[in-house]
């Protein structure tokens, strides 16, 4: 069976503006991805445990509350701790350029601002997600 790209779409932080996350999730579905949608109010711990269990190729976070400089680094740190540092961490929200650059330097992937087309996001994930589900092999099944 053909390998599917699996993406975790999560809303981090307390704000409930899930319009963007839902639109992106629907667009990904229509692009043939399997989207694990966790819903709102996710803490970094919740996001990373889901990413581990769901064995995803990419984690896409939507953050509109302005807390991106605390949330992205924390998620990244936990991902590395749990052995999925190779999974792509990306996302979107209202994020100033300087913050985007700082986050990139930490190892976060591309971040998308307001007005981005869903096509751009999908193409980016297609290109940037690692072999993910296919390459991270046997540990997925037994060890976790």
């Amino acid at each position, binding site marked *: 069976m053909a390998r599917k790209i699996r993406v975790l779409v999560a809303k981090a*932080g*307390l704000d409930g503006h*899930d319009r963007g996350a839902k639109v992106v999730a629907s667009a990904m579905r229509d692009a043939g991805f399997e989207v694990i949608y966790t819903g709102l109010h996710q803490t970094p711990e919740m996001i990373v445990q889901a990413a581990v269990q769901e064995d995803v190729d990419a984690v896409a976070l939507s953050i509109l509350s302005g807390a991106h400089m605390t*949330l992205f680094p924390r998620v990244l740190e936990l991902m590395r701790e749990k052995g999925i540092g190779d999974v792509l961490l990306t996302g979107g929200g209202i994020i100033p350029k300087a913050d985007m650059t700082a986050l990139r330097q930490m190892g976060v992937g591309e971040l998308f601002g307001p007005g981005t087309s869903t096509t751009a996001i999908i193409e980016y994930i297609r290109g940037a997600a690692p072999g993910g589900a296919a390459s991270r092999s046997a540990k997925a099944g037994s060890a976790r």
Partner: protein
Amino acid sequence: MANAARTETATERAKRETSDAETAEAPPALSGGENGAPASPTPLFETLSGIPVKPLYGPVDVKPGLEERLGEPGKFPFTRGLHPEMYRKRLWTMRQFAGFGSAEHTNQRFHYLLAQGMTGLSTAFDMPTLMGYDADHAMAFGEVGREGVAISSLEDMEILFRGIPLDQVTTSMTINAPAVVLLAMYVAVAEKQGIGAEKLGGTVQADMLKEFIAQKEWICPPRPSVKICVDMIEWCAKHMPKWNSISISGYHIREAGATAVQELAFTIADGIGYVEECVKRGMDVDEFAPRLSFFWDVHNDFFEEIAKFRAGRRIWAKLMRDRFGAKNPRSWQLRTHAQTAGVSLTAQQPLNNVARVAIQALAAVLGGTQSLHTNSMDETLALPTEEAATVALRTQQIIAHETGVTNVVDPFAGSYFVESLTDRMEEEAMSYIRRIDEMGGIIQAVERGFPQKEIADSAYRFQMQVEEGRRTIVGVNRFGGEEEISIPVLKIDPEIERRQIERVRAVRARRDAARWEQAMKDLRDACRSDKNLVPYVLDAVRAYATLGEISDVFREAYGVYREPAVF
């Protein structure tokens, strides 16, 4: 696959019509759009909500019986407005949202805005407050004071309104799940100023149904949440005759992606839901209905928005009189606040937002709003800067004092197009309302995720139209440059979080423990009964119980809401 195919045709179309874009003086590079979204000038001849629009309207487009559908301004069914003279007699209330950082900061902003000629206060709260967490809760980490003012205890509220005599202003508080706590705090602050609750004017949003539908800020599941809303409506009807106990909000529904028709339909369905619950409790409809208020979004489609305001008033008047048997004409009136559409603002070329806001504000005025907030041009990015907030207020003042539109009541009445659009919106909204009734009412519909799904579908459809270039957003998918988006962020000092945490801890340490304990116990017991909770919450805040503590009582008693995943 289907997606790729669609994009391709749109690109082709865009190529074909680049010449058109050039005549419009767009940089040619732009046909590709900023983010790969192809631009196409092929206009969609439909409203922003997808209602088809003909090139010309005439007498045949207006169904017979127009006079009856219109009525006189100030009379049933209020299509033409709530007052016979409208703005000639009294302008709308210019109410600008303010609130950021600490209570001290926001208090300063209030004083500044009142000095600028604003006539009502409007408070935004930060996310932890909106979700019922104190500043020192783990979920509040990094979010204290970020999107509004942080209120954890009565002490914060005392600081927020310091030096403002509460009987001389009206205050709107944008708060929902913990609204009962903030309302109680406001009353308690007034008590300390020696002002009785009966003298207080203002609004708490307190509309939980739209939270489940759109804004997604909740504590408990729908039924207990609505119960608490109804407690407030009931208590305010008895004790706060000048207070709007609820602001039934379409704004957030629209911002989440609904069409104008859906905004109208789901908001009015919410209103029906509250009225039904109040009536079930044995209240007389005329006892509370005059204090119900509404809150509309005003988006870009000029005529559609005007028609929405008019249709909304007519639908509500008929429902209240005919379905609920209200006798008092004030019960029939849909009084509304309006805010320009935040979702229509663009991060690209933010100065353009001033023009959008002006046009939207004009539509709200021509639609007959009672109160208006105009967004600041930078609101899509961050909390507004002072300059931007001032321009937004000035926009309203220009409409009020320079354009002359306030001289005439409902100037679009009789327009073939506007009347036909008003009728059409009423019909479509009523058809949604009937479907919701068939599901057993709005609470059931929300539990099933029906409005949520309809809105998600509309949001997705709109996004695809934009990406295919069938909808133009100036500066985003057409007429955009390659300019960097610079995001001026109003920096929130991280110190605020630390100080806020300290303050709430100090309050807990300092308060009269015995009094606090008794008030908390009484509240817990009341939650297990069907008693009205407002007096118990009031006692708890007087005893300096914090917002988080009171919300925890609700969580224990009623559980925590889990939303249905609908797409």
